């Protein structure tokens, strides 16, 4: 066990965990930030996607010991009032069905638009292909990303 000071959603959290513990389980089990989901544990489904220094990262494969001072953003911290353009676009298109994968989808989409404010269909497909949705909401996800891109309010 070791103590780590983690910078998450603008706050510093102190946790005492085994160094091999993935960030996913630190968030869920120790900090009760459960918006980040467990789907596969081998970074194949994207349900656990968070931002590390703004980049979309699968939290199930990042040991807490490797994170250092890097800034983590989870779905809970993506926006203060749940009004990030991607979140708004998701509501506008009523994207979710079961909803379980959607936090991961939103985090991947937000990082994509951050680095590429006007993605083509191919850009969206390439980036979003790491996030699985068993309900099959891909068509709406693509439409929502385009709406968010058009909203022009991305920082």
């Amino acid at each position, binding site marked *: 066990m070791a103590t780590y000071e983690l910078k998450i959603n603008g706050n510093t959290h102190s946790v005492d965990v085994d160094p091999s513990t993935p960030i996913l389980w630190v968030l869920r089990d120790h900090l009760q930030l459960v*918006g980040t989901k467990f789907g596969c544990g081998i970074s*194949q489904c994207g349900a656990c996607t968070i931002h590390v220094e703004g980049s979309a990262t699968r939290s199930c494969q990042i040991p807490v010991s490797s994170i250092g001072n890097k800034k983590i953003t989870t779905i809970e911290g*993506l926006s203060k009032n749940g009004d990030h353009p991607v979140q708004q676009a998701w*509501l506008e298109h*009523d994207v979710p069905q079961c909803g*379980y994968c959607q936090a991961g989808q939103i985090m991947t989409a937000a990082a994509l638009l951050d680095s590429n404010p006007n993605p083509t269909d191919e850009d969206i497909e390439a980036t*979003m292909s790491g996030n699985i949705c068993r309900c099959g909401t891909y068509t*709406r996800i693509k439409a929502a990303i385009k709406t968010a891109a058009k909203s022009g309010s991305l920082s």
Partner: protein
Amino acid sequence: MTLVRTTFGRRAFIKRVGLASGGLMIGFSWLAACKDATPEEVVMMPDEWFEMNGFLKIGDNGMVTIMSPNPEIGQNVKTSMPMIVAEELDTDWDNVIVEQAPLNTELYTRQLAGGSQSIRQGWEGLRMAGATARHMLKEAAANLWQVPVAEITTAAGILTHQASGNTAHYGEMASAAAMLEVPEEVEMKDSKDFSIIGTSRKNVDGKKIVTGKPLFGLDTYKEGMLVAMIVHPPAFGMRFKSMDADSVKNMPGIKDVFTIDTYTDGTRKSFADIATFNKKVAIVGETTWQVMQAKKALAVTWEDSPDDSFEIDMFGRIMKTEYPSGKESSQSHALKMAEIGSKKGNVVRKDGNVDKAFKKAAKVLERSYSCPFLAHNTMEPMNFYANVTSDHAELIGPVQTPEFMEQSVAARLGLTLEQVDIQMTRMGGGFGRRLYGHFLTEAAVISQTMQKPIKLVYTREDDMTFGNYRPSYYVTYKAGLDENNQLIAFQVRAGGIPESPLFANRFPAGAVENYQAEEFTIKSNVSVGAWRAPRSNFIAGAEQSFLDELAELAEKDPIDFRLELFDKAIKKPVGENNDYEAERYAGVLKLVREKSGWGKTREGVHRGVAAYYCHNSYVAQVLDIVKKNGVPKIENVCSAVDCGIVVNPDAAANMVEGGVVDGIGHAMYSSVTFNDGEPQQRNFDSYRLIRHSEAPRKQEVHFVKNDIDPTGLGEPPLPPVMGALANALYKANGKRYYHQPFMSNKPLLG
């Protein structure tokens, strides 16, 4: 208006009057869901709620709380079922708060998610609940204003008596209304007067989902809760022998390691209990990661299991499933199916004489199709929270069959039904997987053993290798055309491991003079279960591919070919018990033909069509493929759907779009295969699910407009698209696809 006797669920309307719960309603109102929510915008809660019946209560300020009775698995019933209540109550949807109802078999009927039946079977009861409350509000107003109740009108939560000029909002009458007797009959609206049903309303949980609020079973955290995981045999045909528990008991955070029997001998089991691997290892510890480490380190010895069987009580009928011993492989499965499928099966339906007709036929076509086992792969793995004490069981989590599980878990724990409290959480997918609630029972047994609250968590691997799979199927179709290219004989021989996918009375039964349906089954110890659109999820695609090839042989347009057959079924149906309405079936084909612009050729666009009827709804699809650098890409899927009245159109379209993607994905990529009884796919690195880049670029969904009571949508859009895909791929690649998954080694869709 339709006058309906309120006999249905009459006991449900025994009221508790003036239920005061002002201020107890905590948290976020859906009202802010579609706006830029700030805490200040959370609406003012009423001081007092008045319960009108089990489905709704009205606040003194006119707000309405509607209970959504059924489990939510992503089919959107938590929004659409309350919409139906709100419609008949005649309230403003903006004043409605939705809550997940508790499990209560006295108040609600069929609290189950499955068979695309929630809306269809809930329709009347939900409407009656709203209409009854509206009537009582009108009666309360009539009493106060001393006017005839028939002269009072309602609209958007306001009661009006035009002649006297009296008006009041529902909240003002709620207290008096709640004191009244439940009327013996109530008026329900004509569908033309609907103002909520048929309009698109956003998912009531939408905001919570996109902001990552705890909604799912796996998000359950309680003070003092431990985490539990199971270890089950690595292969079908194996069982637990021994383990070295001491080797992991001292690992950090580990509290205990022991075996559990999910079911004990003599306990009554329902279909919801079906599962293999009765004895498994339970590991309990402080955190998920710690338990995962112990699970990896634990040495367990397994042994071959003998012949086994599982008896269930299927609504009063005892059914026995046999699990023969042995470790099976996909190779032997395939050989067995081809061999048995080549022999005459058990004849289930016979019209005319196919053998004679085949002899007369000018052209005969015979083709075989197959599909593998599939895992459900709900994105949220199996899990359940359990806190079992000597006289109470608190169980929280995702299960599609809470009514059934309540009975079996009570029996397993030695508790009464009243001592068991199952709370339904939003589910991260169902698809049939959570009809089988063994994980709930396992969680309860582990908690009872530990005498502590625990949350059972399955890893992806635990779930994917557990079974309850979509069975593997095989079908051979044979058809004969006369010299005028008329279909004169049709034979279907369908079977599978361990069940047949046959629906003997579905199309083209009823449309062909000489028709024969046969089936066969092969026993296996691989456990199976309902998987989104059971049986249809294979047979539809096979049948629709065969009809496409048959239309080609008949030198006819594939839609015209089908419409000719439906015409026969409409004018002069053959045989009895035909399980479809030919006119509605033809209707969706005609609609998809019109909407997709079928018949117009576009350079480089390869089109496939299919139509199917299942779970009481009709769906036709046209799927367009374009090739980019030689690689097929699905450009568009156009769906035409007849599911009667559409409650929530945009959400219904979403359901259809999802079914299309899901169907394409599973036909294309997914399978579970076995070697020595061991599933060869354990996680998403080896089990392929469709991904964004492989999904259709665009989708269009069109609904047939009619006044027929609504039917389901969770399943019907999936089966036919497998056929439309195969038929479009044929046009694109010049090759027919008979065996799923269509993609073997190299990627087919770019």
